């Protein structure tokens, strides 16, 4: 099954690249005007300047030729020049991806560290006090959007109790609030998932038998209950990673973090097509690879899924 996915990967990327190239044009974006306006606000229409810019950027060529030229450059590792900055897209994209990857990993680690133990402890006594607290907190974690949570955390931990910087990127302290904000949703989901899976496992006959034989409660909980629950959480984290990598727009804008989300946000606002295209293509490739990695992880951890895949 994994082999089939790997074989299909180039076709998925090709289809995505055609869509990514065509969508802005089908949406009626005038690339030349966009370039002029992104560089000089409220620029009045100037046909001469537009013609010069179109020729300079190859935007006066037929659309199929533009696509083939762009796609060939992408295949050879050349993502082109940003329309806005006239500098290569690849280094900017790589730098932003690096920042977002650090942030995504931090958020997932935080989510696992917070969510999994909380879910396991909640499953020990369903409807108990811990379970109720975890349930309410995780519902809040899922429901409260990042644009609310981020300023609340800043007000609490940077303004009222000045422990952490309110914005910026570069020091470990500056990573805490963005990572915490991003971690809230996956931590809440991880807690809910872990709680449900663990509670289910704890009620199964082999676990009941292990308890009856006198195995310690902690050992039953962690060795038999939580271990299986982790399989589901691990496979979910692969999908979260791709989402966090590109979808942290709000967090990166609010905390002035120079990640992929903010890069794409700026590129879309400025209609910087080479940057948008390269960024989206990178996101698609990462999403496909992350889903594949998550699937492989699940197969490695879950013998039932492994057996199903081999049939």
């Amino acid at each position, binding site marked *: 099954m994994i082999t089939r996915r790997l074989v299909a990967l180039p076709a998925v990327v090709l289809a995505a690249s055609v869509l990514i190239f065509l969508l802005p044009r089908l949406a009626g974006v005038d690339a030349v005007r966009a370039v002029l306006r992104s*560089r000089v606000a409220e620029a009045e229409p100037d046909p001469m300047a*537009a013609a010069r810019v179109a020729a300079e950027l190859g935007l006066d060529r037929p659309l199929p030729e533009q696509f083939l030229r762009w796609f060939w450059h992408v295949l050879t590792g050349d993502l082109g020049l940003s329309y806005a900055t006239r500098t290569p897209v690849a280094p900017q994209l790589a730098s932003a991806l690096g920042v977002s990857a650090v942030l995504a990993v931090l958020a997932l680690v935080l989510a696992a560290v917070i969510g999994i133990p909380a879910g396991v402890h909640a499953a020990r006594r369903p409807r108990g006090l811990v379970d109720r607290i975890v349930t309410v907190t995780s519902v809040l974690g899922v429901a409260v959007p990042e644009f609310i949570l981020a300023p*609340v955390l*800043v007000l609490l931990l940077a*303004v009222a109790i000045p422990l952490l*910087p*309110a914005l*910026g990127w570069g020091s470990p302290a500056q990573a805490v609030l963005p990572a915490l904000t991003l971690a809230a949703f996956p931590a809440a989901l991880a807690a809910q998932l872990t709680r449900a899976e663990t509670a289910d496992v704890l009620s199964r006959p082999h676990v009941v038998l292990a308890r009856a034989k006198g195995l310690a409660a902690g050992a039953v909980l962690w060795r038999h209950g939580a271990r299986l629950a982790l399989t589901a959480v691990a496979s979910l984290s692969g999908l979260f990673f791709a989402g966090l990598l590109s979808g942290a727009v709000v967090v990166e*804008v609010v905390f002035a973090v120079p990640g992929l989300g903010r890069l794409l946000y*700026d590129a879309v606002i400025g209609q910087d097509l080479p940057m948008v295209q390269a960024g989206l293509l990178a996101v698609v490739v990462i999403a496909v690879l992350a889903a594949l990695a998550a699937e492989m992880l699940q197969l490695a951890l879950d013998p039932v899924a492994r057996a199903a895949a081999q049939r």
Partner: protein
Amino acid sequence: MIAVLALLAACGRGGGGEGGTPVPDGELRIAAQFSPRSGYAIDTDDAYILTQLGATEALTAASADGQVRPALAESWSQIDPLTWRFVLRSGVTFHDGTPLTPAAVVTALGYVAGVAAPPRALRGLGLAAVEDGADAVRIATAHPDPILPLRMSSPNAVILAPSAYAGGAPSVIGTGTGPMRLTAVEGTQQAVLERFDGYWGGRPALARVSATFVDDPSARALALRAGDVDIAQGLPESTLLEFSAGSGFDDQTVAAPRTVSLLMNQSAAPFDDARIRQAVTRAVDRTALAEQALAGSAVPASELFGPAVAWGAQGPAPAPDVAGARALLTEAGHGPDNPLRVRLWTYQNRPELPTLATAVQAMLREAGIDAEIQIGEYGTQEPEVLAGRYDMFLLSRSYLTDVPDAGATLRSDYTCDGSYNINHYCSAAFDSLVGTLDTTTDVAARQDVFRAAASMLVDDAVGVPLVHSLENGVSHNVVGYTLDPMTKQLVTPQLAVTG
């Protein structure tokens, strides 16, 4: 919950606003409103960021009242209608240690005049600079330009060291002449500057400046509250109250040279009828728009130019006259049996526009005009409105293009051949009036023309200027901070932080 936390936070901060003893060799941290979009390209709007931060300078400088003053040029004179001579200031050194020379000025101006899409202030001039002796340059234009010295104050006309132009796009790192030397930029996130000890205007008080570009206005306010920055630009109106007098912060608000206008298409019915345009003008309550719809974040407009400029209207906006509007509509053939239905377009790049559109719609309804609002994307609307395929268009536009002179705006937006004449207004008398600017050098005389032009636009009901925008900036523990409505100046040699 946010309100409770904000109150809690407000209790924990404060003290030390404007005033106090300047700290020698201090560091200023700024939460800047507009991030660089074009990699600090000198021919783009990013040039404003560099002049604001004190990194670059031009041959001249200009104040909001339209007066031009010396900067890298000590003096200038007009040799003939097409040529000006600028004498360079002696003892000026670039940040890379090389001296300012006529050759450096020629290189810099030659670059910016020759780019594919020249900046607004220099477009279509046919600008050409040549050396003139050891300490001067001659700058010629293809057509007479009475405000060339003023144009030379544009942030796009700054002079960088010759090393900046060694290859590709000019490098702005360590190549300016301003009080602060740009030492590092981190994409669109941050710029870092250090004091330039060789500055011709005296030793700057600040040793270091760091500007963090924060797109989210609420995040800028929180960063100021948290003490992460000393100056925050463009804060939300709702947060200004907590920074007002007595809070320990110094908040400043100035009128910006920007007007939100309700444009009406005069090239087609119904707005080719002056009575209907006058009816719209009378139906709109501009004071209510500024003070209620926008909660005081703008001032009501009575004409195109507002309090940001010396020639702008200073008086109150005209009161609405709904009965008068109805009478005019009746005279034009519209009433309960034949109501006037129009489309009102606007865009959401500027968040105040949809709000204003809704309020204007309600005011027009009172007068008997049914306006259907369509909110779209400016980029797709622009070709339509320029082609005259619209009824009403709510537009936010700056009336100064880089220099404190309204000639370019009046010509592009209101003359018969104007490239941005969305109203499709065409008046021989108006064109003749604006034409006098071609030969008018005197600043006061030009400003008289601007006033007369604005008055003529009101008389002819060319759009309805609704409100003038306001800009704000808040500082904490800073002395010498003055908010510049032209957004050209922020870091000066006198700016300092206090203990």
